[in-house]
Structures are given as C-alpha cells and as structure tokens.
C-alpha cells in the first residue's frame, strides 16, 4: 500500500531551498536515560552513540537525539520503525520504559543553501550563531507559532521536525523566510 507523508515531498526552490523529506521512522523512548539496560537496548538496536544532553548522533538515515532528561528520539528509515520498536521493547520488557512509534505524527524538512541558518533565525528564538549552534546539537524550540526540533546536518543544511498536522504551516513559513532577496547578511 502506498503511504503518504504530510506534504508528499513538497519543495520550494531558490538559493536556499526547503524540502519536505517524506516519511521518516521516529521512535520516542521514555525511561531512565542513565539506566544501562536502556542505553544498551537503544544503542544496540540502532547502532548509534548515546547522545549527551541536547545532542544528536547521526549515521546516515539513523539518528539518536536527546529530547528531555527522560526522553530520546530515534530516527530511522520509515519501514524499520515498527521492527525497532519491537526489538527495543523486547530488551526493556518488565522495565519502566515506553517505546512508541511516532513516525506518522511528524513531518521532516530539509533547509539547505547559503542562508539556511538565517531562515531558521527568522523563526526561532534561539541563538543560532555558528559559535553557539553547530552540528551535533538538537534544539527543541518553536518556529513562529509551533513547536519544532532543529539540528544542523551539514555546512549549509539544517533539518526540522514538527507535528504532521502543521506541516503545511511550517513549510510555508520556512519557504517565505527563504525567499530570494530576503537574506539578512548577519551570520
């Protein structure tokens, strides 16, 4: 069966580009992040390093992000998510931990191009100066009027995760902020 992401890969072109990235597996893991079993279950299943506070570790399509003192977000290919949930849940059976597939509750965007950093700085009340915000940090914040998580994935590339229902809104405000001729020249 064909599965649909929120915006079916919509993109806006320009020097700085905004693209909806299609479906991505996303798993919320809640529990005691200092617990060795939990760490092993998550890192063992995903093959990713365990992130420190507000960090994200990435290997290709997979990433593991610290979301809160008791919460992780595991990203993976969409069709791997159910299996990952099952595997991690099995490792944590009997423990106070919650592993849930939230892939379809989200939308994911790539903002890339010379002004990608500025595009986000028009919308998020976060110090995005390169000295303050660089690769490896996962920042939960707001973009204009909705909650979002952002991180830097490459030199001129940032990724954005938001709720699926507001995907159109987030795409629109990112595209608006990325319009040619609106560069700030700040960073």
């Amino acid at each position, binding site marked *: 069966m064909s599965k649909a992401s929120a915006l079916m890969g919509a993109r806006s072109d320009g020097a700085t580009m905004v693209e909806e990235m299609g479906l991505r597996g996303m798993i919320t893991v809640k529990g005691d992040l200092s617990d060795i079993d939990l760490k092993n279950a998550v890192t063992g299943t995903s093959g990713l390093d365990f992130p420190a506070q*507000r960090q994200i570790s990435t290997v290709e399509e997979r990433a593991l992000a610290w979301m*809160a*003192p008791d*919460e992780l977000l595991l990203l993976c290919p969409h069709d791997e998510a159910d299996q990952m949930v099952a595997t991690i849940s099995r490792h944590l059976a009997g423990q106070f931990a919650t592993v849930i597939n939230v892939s379809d509750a989200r939308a994911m965007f790539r903002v890339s191009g010379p002004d990608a950093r500025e595009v986000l700085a028009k919308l998020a009340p976060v110090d995005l100066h390169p000295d303050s915000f660089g690769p490896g940090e996962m920042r*939960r*914040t707001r973009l204009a009027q909705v*909650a979002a998580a952002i991180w830097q994935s490459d030199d001129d590339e940032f990724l954005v995760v938001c709720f699926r229902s507001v995907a159109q809104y987030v795409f629109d405000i990112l595209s608006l902020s990325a319009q040619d001729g609106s560069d700030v020249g700040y960073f």
Partner: protein
Amino acid sequence: MLILECPYCGVTADETELAAGGEAHLKRFGPGSSDEEFEGYLFHRQNPKGVHFERWRHANGCGKWFHAARCTASLEVFATYTAQIAEPPAEVIAAIRAKRPDWSPE
C-alpha cells in the same frame, strides 16, 4: 521578555519558549480537608512585590516543569530549580539571601 535557564535541558530559554504556571510549592488539599484549607489551596496566592517562587514549563522545549525564584519588582532571577521538590532547596534560599539580606522565607 524574561530569560530563564531550564534546569532540565540547560537551555537559557526565551520567555516565548516557556509557559507560566503561577505560584510554586502549593500544598494540595483533597477530600477530608477543611473548607479553610481547601480555600487556601485553591484560591489564595501570595502576589508579593519582591521574592516569589513560580512554576514554569519549558513548553516549546523539553516539556519539563521547573521552578524559578524571582523578584517580581526587578525581575532578577535568583535561581531555577527542579519541580520535584515540596519547598525551595537550601541553596536557593541562600542565593536569595545573598542578594536580598532582608528577605527571609516564611
């Protein structure tokens, strides 16, 4: 437009990432409590000009509730600290006393 440091994720958060939750350290009174106790719990608030303990949630962030000790007049923030505590910890009291020697907890 305050900034408060979230003790859970370490972010120095802009007020627009936060949601205010009113006075902190209220003691809950449930069934079996007297009318006076319940009235105090439900309705009576301090509203001081000066040192105040407040609840804040890092709503557009890690989602955690935390406490802040703050001066309502100058907006000086003495400390932010965990929500999992029934009264301000000693080091928070000390931090306030260092800045406001005349103040004492009730």
